[in-house]
């Protein structure tokens, strides 16, 4: 029994790494999503082209290959990353490319009349974006951002391939040491599921908070 609790400790350590990766990857993904999503709507061709190239490239190639590049290929051009850095980079850039399209779509979903009100009130492009368009668009983005975050959580498993001791990696260690396949893999299945549920709940409560007042219900 004490032996099992030791193995369980290993898996918990892995869970912490997975959570860390998910959080840091999400921050990078969110940043890239706004930069590239708004870049696609820019007046300037160069920004639009750069944003489009980024999005298409990172959506169009495999996350595995991107991770291998970040970890194994970048050192050849003088950039050596730790497994954690490489993992965050690959996950953040990959999921950020998907989320960028969410940002663009949400901004475009805000009605023309809101933009016209901004013009009539003489708000600058950025002022209107910052105070009027983005706050409303954010509410449209949130549910899909929740999806993206869960996708990112599940994609963290690939970092075990570059020897980062995440949840999946630790499960394999436990399996190798105990010879038991069922228990470690069932455990991490449950842990992934719980983490995904936490993200769902978090996003949904954020959504509720932001939607307050918009539907005419008393605040």
């Amino acid at each position, binding site marked *: 029994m004490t032996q099992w609790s030791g193995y369980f400790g290993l898996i918990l350590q892995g869970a912490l790494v997975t959570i860390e990766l998910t959080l840091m990857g999400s921050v990078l993904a969110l940043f890239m999503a706004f930069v590239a999503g708004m870049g696609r709507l820019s007046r300037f061709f160069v920004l639009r082209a750069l944003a489009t190239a980024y999005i298409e490239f990172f959506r169009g190639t495999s996350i595995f290959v991107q991770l291998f590049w970040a970890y194994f290929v970048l050192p050849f051009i003088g950039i050596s990353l730790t497994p954690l850095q490489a993992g965050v980079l690959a996950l953040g850039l990959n999921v950020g490319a998907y989320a960028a399209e969410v940002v663009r779509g949400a901004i475009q979903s805000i009605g023309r009349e*809101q933009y016209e009100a901004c013009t009539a*009130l003489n708000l600058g492009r950025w002022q209107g974006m910052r105070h009027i368009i983005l706050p409303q668009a954010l509410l449209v983005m949130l549910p899909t951002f929740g999806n993206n975050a869960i996708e990112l959580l599940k994609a963290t498993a690939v970092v075990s391939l570059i020897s980062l001791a995440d949840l999946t990696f630790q499960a394999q260690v436990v399996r190798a040491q105990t010879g038991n396949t069922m228990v470690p893999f069932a455990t991490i299945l449950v842990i992934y599921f719980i983490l995904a549920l936490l993200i769902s709940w978090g996003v949904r409560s954020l959504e509720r908070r932001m939607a307050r007042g918009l539907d*005419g219900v*008393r605040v």
Partner: protein
Amino acid sequence: MSASAPIIKIDGISKSFGNFKVLDGLSMQVMPGEKLALIGPSGSGKTTILRILMTLERIDGGHIQIDGEQLYHIERNGQLLPADERHLTRMRQKIGMVFQLFNLFPHKCVMDNVTLAPMLTKGTPRATAEKRAMELLEMVGMADKAKNMPAQLSGGQKQRVAIARALALSPKIMLFDEVTSALDPELVEEVMNVMRKLAAETDMTMLLVTHEMGFAHDFADRVLFFDRGKIVEEGKPDEIFRHPKQERTQGFLKKIIAAGHRV
């Protein structure tokens, strides 16, 4: 007409949407403080004129002067060049607009809807902006709803807030684009009352596009009847509504009355 210069001088402007020519060489002038009603059938170009003045649509040709300055052009070395965003921003300070569908910001309370633009565009301190907003909300009878969200208001209330919001920037010219058309009949009057009061109490120049002929009659110093992008007839409200000279004006008014609108 007084000796002062027109505050709006439209000179031969044209505008097409695709193949449809809405305005074709239209010219007109508005004197400072004048209250103008633009009437006419749908698609006659009335709303387009307001949208052009608010820089929501660009013109294909012609010139517009607001308050002695070119709206869409910059004069440099005696030449007229297309205006840049900075020039437009400066010119927009002179003009405010109220929309048919209110266009309130749904995520901001009534107070924030009114104070946002003065604080952002003029750097008005919050306390000053809120004090002024309360005065304006008082005037439109919405002071007790200052903390409400737009979704909690009726159409008439939303429109009154929208009027206060436009006034908060103290424009010289106010444009009203069918501001009662989207309202339930019983809510039309409260918005019209606010506007009558506004017309009587301020020396702001006002342009009103409306299908409410009775309201146009009370509100305006001068009525312009538009058809197919041209001014067919203009004159004092009594002349236009009681003794229209042009056949097309007569026909239009007859149709409107038949449709149940009062004159």
